[in-house]
């Protein structure tokens, strides 16, 4: 579309000449590479609690981040004021990471060709306020109607639109307009006089409000949250110890995110601090496992037309038939490892330095019938819904917290059990995958990944998977 038609040119009058001036200032002390990340983010959210709309919030943040790289060093500064003086000042601060004569900035820009993964029929601000109210009211009603034991419902809807412009000293220019929308529902249910139990559900993606009218309705999410709370009313103590675990399809893909995804981010591997360091070409999972990270899937929460360094996203094979194939690269690590960026450079906002991150991480479908997988287990646990997870990159130990699970007894799913944490070791855990289902499912779109204090939206997915052995942290020892 060209800079002159871009949001930042129209709104703030930014020209190619301005960008060149800022980048020259950034390289004035001898930096090898510099980039500018302009961001304008508008958000809107509404929430319902105890049957009434208690809050509605809108807001705007904008700013620009200036980064300078020299060798392994990064200088970074930002400004929430887009006036030339303030941007030049930030560029000067970032420049100080280098100590030498000024480097020359390539003149003229070439536009990067990104994808078009999230076309918008209507921008978020074009949807009326009352349409938002209607979504949360429908969710509230649906959760309450699901079962008379439901007694508390919180329903929220939030959307945002982020405009970004990335300009690099290599003369690359890229623009993106990134929508995001999400619904979330929390439910409490109880038997008369008994203790309450919780259920959570939600979803969305790089979509707008219309997604919740046409594709996944508020009722879909509300019923799921209510169902989980009701199931928990009958839950018994979770088991403790090593056992066979079957993961249901979809959100349990958080296993991949924690067990292998973080450990394959290039920064840790460049520094040799990951349990996966130096293991490309080695067997790190059962031959049944092929794990992909793909930032170029239409409308998914983890997707991006271009990453936050202006590089188009792509499909990256992390593990192929159990063999470790590659890392997730950003610009800095790929420069130092003499590799290519894999379109995995991401940042939370203009205030943050980019680093290698996941987008949508999933395992390819296998050939087993999901029901057959459960039938093959004499005694074990079937987990369908998870809360969060975490990993210690260096030892490789990771956890993920099951919030809905059932005992498997003689090949049949029997009683629901209470929440429990599962723990394993990244380079070992997937070697115990003995069956992979044909039912690959991506999650509903609620994932948030945290790394070094930066939070970015991500997706996960997995077919039904059988792990012959993993440690389950229940209380019933």
């Amino acid at each position, binding site marked *: 579309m060209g800079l002159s038609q871009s949001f930042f040119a129209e709104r703030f009058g930014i020209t190619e000449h301005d960008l060149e001036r800022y980048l020259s200032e950034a390289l004035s002390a001898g930096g090898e590479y510099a980039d500018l990340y302009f961001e304008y983010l508008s958000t809107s959210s509404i929430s319902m*609690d105890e049957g009434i709309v208690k809050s509605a919030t809108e807001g705007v943040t904008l700013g620009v981040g200036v980064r300078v790289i020299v060798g392994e060093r990064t200088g*970074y500064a930002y400004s929430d004021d887009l006036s030339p003086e303030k941007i030049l000042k930030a560029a000067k601060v970032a420049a100080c*990471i280098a100590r030498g004569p000024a480097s020359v900035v390539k003149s003229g820009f070439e536009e990067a060709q990104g994808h078009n993964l999230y076309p918008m029929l209507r921008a978020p601000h074009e949807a009326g306020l009352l349409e938002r109210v209607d979504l949360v009211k429908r969710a509230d009603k649906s959760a309450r109607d699901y079962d008379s034991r439901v007694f508390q419902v919180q329903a929220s809807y939030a959307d945002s639109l982020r405009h970004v412009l990335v300009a690099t000293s290599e003369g690359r220019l890229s623009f993106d307009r990134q929508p995001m929308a999400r619904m979330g529902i929390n439910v409490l249910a109880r038997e008369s006089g008994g203790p*309450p139990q919780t259920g959570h559900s939600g979803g969305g993606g790089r979509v707008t409000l219309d997604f919740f009218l046409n594709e996944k309705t508020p009722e879909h999410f509300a019923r799921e949250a209510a169902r989980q709370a009701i199931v928990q009313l009958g839950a018994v103590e979770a088991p403790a110890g090593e056992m066979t675990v079957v993961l249901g399809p979809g959100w349990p893909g958080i296993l991949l995110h924690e067990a292998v995804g973080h450990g394959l981010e290039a920064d840790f591997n460049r520094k040799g601090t990951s349990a996966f360091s130096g293991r490309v070409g080695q067997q790190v999972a059962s031959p049944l496992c092929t794990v992909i990270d793909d930032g170029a899937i239409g409308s998914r929460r983890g997707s991006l037309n271009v990453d936050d360094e202006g590089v188009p996203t792509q499909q990256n094979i992390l593990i192929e038939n159990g063999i470790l194939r590659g890392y997730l690269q950003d610009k800095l690590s790929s420069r130092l490892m003499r590799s290519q960026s894999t379109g995995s450079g991401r940042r939370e906002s203009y205030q943050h330095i980019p680093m290698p991150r996941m987008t949508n991480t999933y395992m390819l479908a296998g050939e087993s019938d999901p029901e057959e997988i459960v039938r093959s287990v004499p005694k074990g646990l079937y987990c369908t819904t998870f809360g969060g997870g975490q990993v210690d990159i260096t030892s490789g130990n990771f*956890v993920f917290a099951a919030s809905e699970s059932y005992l498997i007894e003689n090949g049949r799913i029997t009683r629901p059990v*209470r929440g*429990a944490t599962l723990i394993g070791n990244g380079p070992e855990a997937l070697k115990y995958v003995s069956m992979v289902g044909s039912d690959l499912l991506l999650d509903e779109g609620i994932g948030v990944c945290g790394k070094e204090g930066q939070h970015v939206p991500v997706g996960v997915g997995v077919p039904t998977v059988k792990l012959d052995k993993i440690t389950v942290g229940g209380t019933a*020892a």
Partner: protein
Amino acid sequence: MTDLEKIASGAVRQALDGGASDAECTISEGEEFSAGVRMREIETLKEAGSRAAGIRVLSGKRTGSSYTSDLSPEGISQMVRAALELLTITSEDPEAGLPDPKDLGQVSTDLRLYDDAIARMEPDWKIAQAKCAEDAALNTDPRIENSEGASFDSYLGNRVFANSRGFTGSYRTSSCSLAVSPVAKQNGSMERDYWYSSARAASGLETPEYVGRQAAERAVRRLNPRKVATQKAPIVFEPRTARSLLDDLFGAVSGSAIYRHASFLVDKLGERIASENLTIVDDATIPGLFGSSPFDDEGVQTRRTVVIERGVLRSYLLNTYSARKLGLKTTGNASRGITGNAGVGPGNLFIEAGSTPPEKIIAGIRNGLFVTTLIGATANTVTGDFSSGAAGLWIENGELAYPVSEITIAGNLMQMLMDLEQIGSDLEFRGSIASPTLLIREMTVSGH
């Protein structure tokens, strides 16, 4: 009035002029500096400042909120208009409203939240601190072969609040921190740990040499861990992990959870809910600490609140809204970012120190776990269910015998509170939530 206070009270006035019956405005301003070094070389330098304003408006019992990073007159006007427009879609909420005027106020003594020495620190000095700390870690033990680096961060903040009931106030804060994360390696085993020191005043930091050595010793003692058998065992939480339990407990005493019936402590005021040796206090008026402030995020004067006294639940932690829902009085614990309805947050929440030194607690255990790391802890404040990945040292006959990892510990917070057998004498504040060493009589350890 400072310039920012003028902007805040101006925004409040604009909201009233625009038809709001009440309004409250928060402005936050900050300057951050961060230096990262790795393997004795500078890795990152970051320096920048930013500002943001938020407003919440009321029309009778309805509310609307908005925020902006543009503090120009046009930016502020746009923010006020956006909030007023949202008043048309929210519901009448009988308990919504600003605090009662008599609750508004500030602690008048100096809370020592700002130290000018931090503003005067030279970047080169800060980089040297990080280098020195990492160097100390690398020199502590030959098995420290690698490092995730060390960092020195500093922050200068200014928080301003004004509302339509006549409150205008602001306070400046400062902080600095030094952190190191070395990697130890031996016989194919690789482990990482960290240590950090943080303070509001420059003089409050531990020395770089101490921080580096602590981090290195912690990483080295994790090498070649074992996985233990699944069993019930006594668990000792060192202060670093004990504070995570207190954080979970905060969720259960928060007024927001109580009025929704989303806590296992609903209807338990005045009841014995914990071992008699447990006293928990929240106090935002202790000078120099991270959880201190002269007023909370809705302009209510902060105070000291005894939450649990010798095992008996004495008070929830409340903001104005949750207090009204429960027919109680606010405890000055309102918390929010810069806009929206206030939530509930801790001041300095801590477990009062006991009299037993931590070494003595460990010496009294025949077979149990000393937890130094919790990973992915999940606590359900509705049911009390707690489950977490863990690493630490196994205790045999009163001594720290060998490292363990890839295990979980699980229990229920209700039972864990009753099973709290001993509390250490080693209380110290590294953040707004602090606990001494804790011994819980029995939890489930899950291993192989």
